[in-house]
Each structure stands twice: as structure tokens, then as C-alpha cells.
């Protein structure tokens, strides 16, 4: 037993393990789907109209968001009732989501140029939809893609906590709690926007931490 390590470390490790599991599923499904879609589009239209991998980034925002939301609403009562602190819960939720997000950001940063290579070899244009961009220097790309994958998860944790705390009233706070991922979904690739995503995510994480520390653990919703 690793009872020597602080509780937040143990909880973060445990949660990261399951976050990586869910991440593996996410990427497996995305890669298969992206390949199939690319082949189908190339076959029907002659060439894919835009980079399929770049559209996976929207999933990169909203999939971790729902994972974070479900994690919070389904397990905070079990965690605290089993004698663990809210502190370790919220740190574990945020850090495990962030670690998985960073890893996904790296994967996406690597995959996009690879996809571009494939498109180039086939003579297809490597475009993106609407205002979304694939920023050029790889450093900027990494910052953007890490932000994209981290922000959804962090926001999901905050939205989950807000709903757990205030139920339906939490809807009023929705514009604020999802601000960071909404900014991220612009994906215009400008440095200012990237900085704004990171700043909004940091504020979201702090808000989640503060909210979690005193949250009352109610009776579970399902009462049979």
C-alpha cells in the first residue's frame, strides 16, 4: 500500500490511470473513424474537402468535458463518504484531466503534420473549416492543442460541481463555467486567443477548487 504518499497524489494517480484508459478508447475510435471517413470522402468526392484530423479537435474539447462532468457528479459522494477529502478529489479530477489533455495535445500536434504529409502525397489540399486554423510553428500548435484538450476537462469538472451544488439553478452559471472551452472552439490559432484559453482554464480550475472545498455531500439522487 502506498499510504505514505499524500492523499492527493494517490487519488491523482488512480484517476489518471482511468483517464488514460478512456483516452486510449477516444484515440482508438477517432483514428479508426478518421481513416474511414477520409477514405470514403476521397472515394466519393475525389478528395477530402478539409483535414479530417482537425475536426477531431472539437471532440477533443467536448469529450473530456463530458468525462469530467460525469466523473464529478457520479463519484464525489462516494469519494467523500469513503473518508477522503474534497481537496484530493478536486485536485485529482483537475490534474488527471489536465495530464490526459496534455498527452492528447502532443498526439494531435504530431498527427496533424503527418496527416498533411499524407494529403500532400495524394495531391489533396490540407484545409480547415471556417475560421479554425492549424498554427504554423509547432510550438504554437502544441500550445493550442494542449489548451484545447485541457480546457474541456477542466470546465467539465467545474460544470459538474456547479450542478452537484445547485442542481437546476446551475444552468444560470453555464455561460461562465463553459467560457474556456467556448473560447477554445474558435481555434483561430492567434497567440492572444491561445493565451485567453489558458487564462480562462486557469480561472476555471481555481473556481472548481474553491467550490469543491466546502461542497455539501447530499444524498445520492437515485433513491430506490
Amino acid at each position, binding site marked *: 500500500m502506498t499510504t505514505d504518499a499524500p492523499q492527493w497524489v494517490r487519488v491523482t494517480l*488512480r484517476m489518471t490511470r482511468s483517464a488514460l484508459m478512456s483516452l486510449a478508447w477516444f484515440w482508438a475510435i477517432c483514428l479508426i473513424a478518421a481513416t474511414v471517413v477520409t477514405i470514403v470522402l476521397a472515394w466519393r468526392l475525389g478528395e477530402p474537402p478539409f483535414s479530417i484530423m482537425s475536426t477531431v479537435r472539437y471532440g477533443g474539447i467536448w469529450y473530456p468535458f463530458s468525462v469530467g462532468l460525469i466523473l464529478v457528479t457520479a463519484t464525489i*459522494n*462516494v469519494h467523500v*463518504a469513503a*473518508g477522503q477529502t474534497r*481537496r484530493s478529489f478536486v485536485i485529482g479530477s483537475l490534474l488527471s484531466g489536465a495530464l490526459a489533455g496534455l498527452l492528447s495535445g502532443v498526439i494531435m500536434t504530431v498527427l496533424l503534420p503527418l496527416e498533411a504529409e499524407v494529403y500532400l502525397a495524394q495531391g489533396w489540399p490540407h484545409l480547415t473549416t471556417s475560421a479554425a486554423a492549424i498554427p504554423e510553428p509547432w510550438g504554437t500548435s502544441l500550445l493550442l492543442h494542449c489548451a484545447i484538450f485541457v480546457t474541456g476537462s477542466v470546465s467539465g469538472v467545474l460544470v459538474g460541481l456547479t450542478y452537484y451544488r445547485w442542481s437546476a439553478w446551475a444552468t444560470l452559471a453555464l455561460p461562465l463555467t463553459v467560457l474556456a472551452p467556448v473560447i477554445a472552439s474558435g481555434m483561430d490559432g492567434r497567440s492572444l486567443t491561445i493565451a485567453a484559453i489558458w487564462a480562462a482554464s486557469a480561472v476555471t480550475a481555481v473556481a472548481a477548487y474553491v467550490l469543491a472545498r466546502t461542497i455539501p*455531500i447530499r*444524498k*445520492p439522487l437515485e*433513491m430506490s
Partner: protein
Amino acid sequence: MSGYAVSVRDLTVRYGRTTAVDRVSFDLEADGIYGLLGRNGSGKTSTLSVLASLRRATAGTVLVDGADPFENEALMAGIALIRESGDVLANAKISVNFDYFRRVRPAWDPDFAEELVDVFGLNRKKPISTFSRGQKSAFGAVIGLASRAPLTMFDEVYLGMDAPSRYRFYDLLLADYAEHPRTIILSSHLISEIERLFSGVVVIDEGRLLLSEDVDEFRTRGATFTGPVAAVDAVTAGLRVVASRSLGPTKEVTVYGDLDETTLAGARSADIAIGGVSVQDLFVHLTEKESR
């Protein structure tokens, strides 16, 4: 590991404008089985929730083993509150739950947990969410017992169980408590089955503390006087009468309070039968009186 002492001072819990617990104070010595008694909505669950760090007190203090348990990592690991609704991984099987609790409860006994599953006849192959209400309650009892937390609280969990399971639970609780003494609080409004398990009782009504006493003291304070109406009236004049009923010329009066030898001797010489009162009856009489 032995049990934690509990000290509650002027505890107040409010939900908006509703006051669930109103300046309640009591102390529980380490190692004992205590009854937290109160009618539905009397504030039992709120009190236990603060002790278990599930919510913060609106005012007042709660000390477990001499410290505030709220967000206290070391203390919380040794405090377990089992609620009837069950705070378990509902979509997982028993083994997954046990794996989880083994890692978070320092005194978790895996063999005991498996033994309890057999005793209650729970299905190891299905997720907890598919269990009946009684089976869910039993599973809560399993988690609560096998955690061996120095402060273990059961909030009416046994109400969902059928009679045989309830008695199995009482027997297991007693046997395990005898081997591993700790502080156990059982909250209930149905007391007759468990009143002899208690070493002390805390009675709350409408958020207020009615009494907190050693169980023997509590019982000896209650008495029934049965005899001729006039004689019974004479003896019980000036005593705190919590219930009375007349059967023609005979009257039975239940009193609560310190009874001195003179009163008792007076009653005996007046041909009045003195009887005991169960904790259940005393509780019912006291809370009826208070809510009027």
C-alpha cells in the same frame, strides 16, 4: 485501533431558512455503541453528516478525537457514515467496490468483508445498482462493518432490511465490536430491537437535544406506577409525567426523572406496582410531549 471520542458543541445546521439542528451539544466517550434517536426529520442525518464531514456546520463545533473532522485527511479516513441510499460504486460489482474501499480505508478487513457478503447472501456477479433495497442496505452494512472505522455511523441503514437480515446485522455488529472496540453510532426511530445494544443514547427532537445519557441512567429515570387512581395521583404529584392512562379504578402513569427512595417506598406501601419502561416507550413519550 480503538475508537474516537465525539464532542458536539452548540451545533447548528440550517438549510436556507429551515433550521435542521438547533444548538445541539453532547459528548460520546470513545468505544461504545450509541443510539442517536429522533423521529423522522428531527435532525439526526444532519448531525451525522457534520460528524462525517459531509457538510459543514452553520454554527457551533464538532470534534472527533479532539479535532475538527472537516476536510481533515487523517481523521476522515477513520470516520464512516453509512447512509441508506448508499455511497458506493453503484454500477460496479462487489469486487470492484471492495478494491476501492480496501485502498481508502486503512483498517479495511478483506476477509471479513467476503464473509459478510456470504452471510447476507449478496450476488457477487451483478452490479450493486441491480440489488433490491434490502440488498443495497445489507451491502451498506457490509462496507460499514468491514471498514472498521474508529467512528462508524449507520444512519437507519437497517430499515431497508428484512427482519432476519436486521438481526444478522445486530449480531455481526456486536460480535465484531466485542473483538474490535470502536465508537459506533446507530441512528433510528425504531428502537425496540436495538435498545439493549446501546451503552448510551442521545435523543433529539425537532433539531433540539432532549437528552444525552448513559443508557442505564436513562432507563432508571423512567418508571410506571400502576395502582388505584387516587394513590397513583398522590405519589406522582410533582413528578414529570410523560404518559398516563386509566383503566376504571386503576391508573398507570409513566414518569421521567430522578426518583428518590422515599417516592419509591411511598409507592410500594400504597400498593402501587412499579415497573420499568423500555427505551422505545420512553422515547415515544418524550418526543410526543415535546412536539405538542
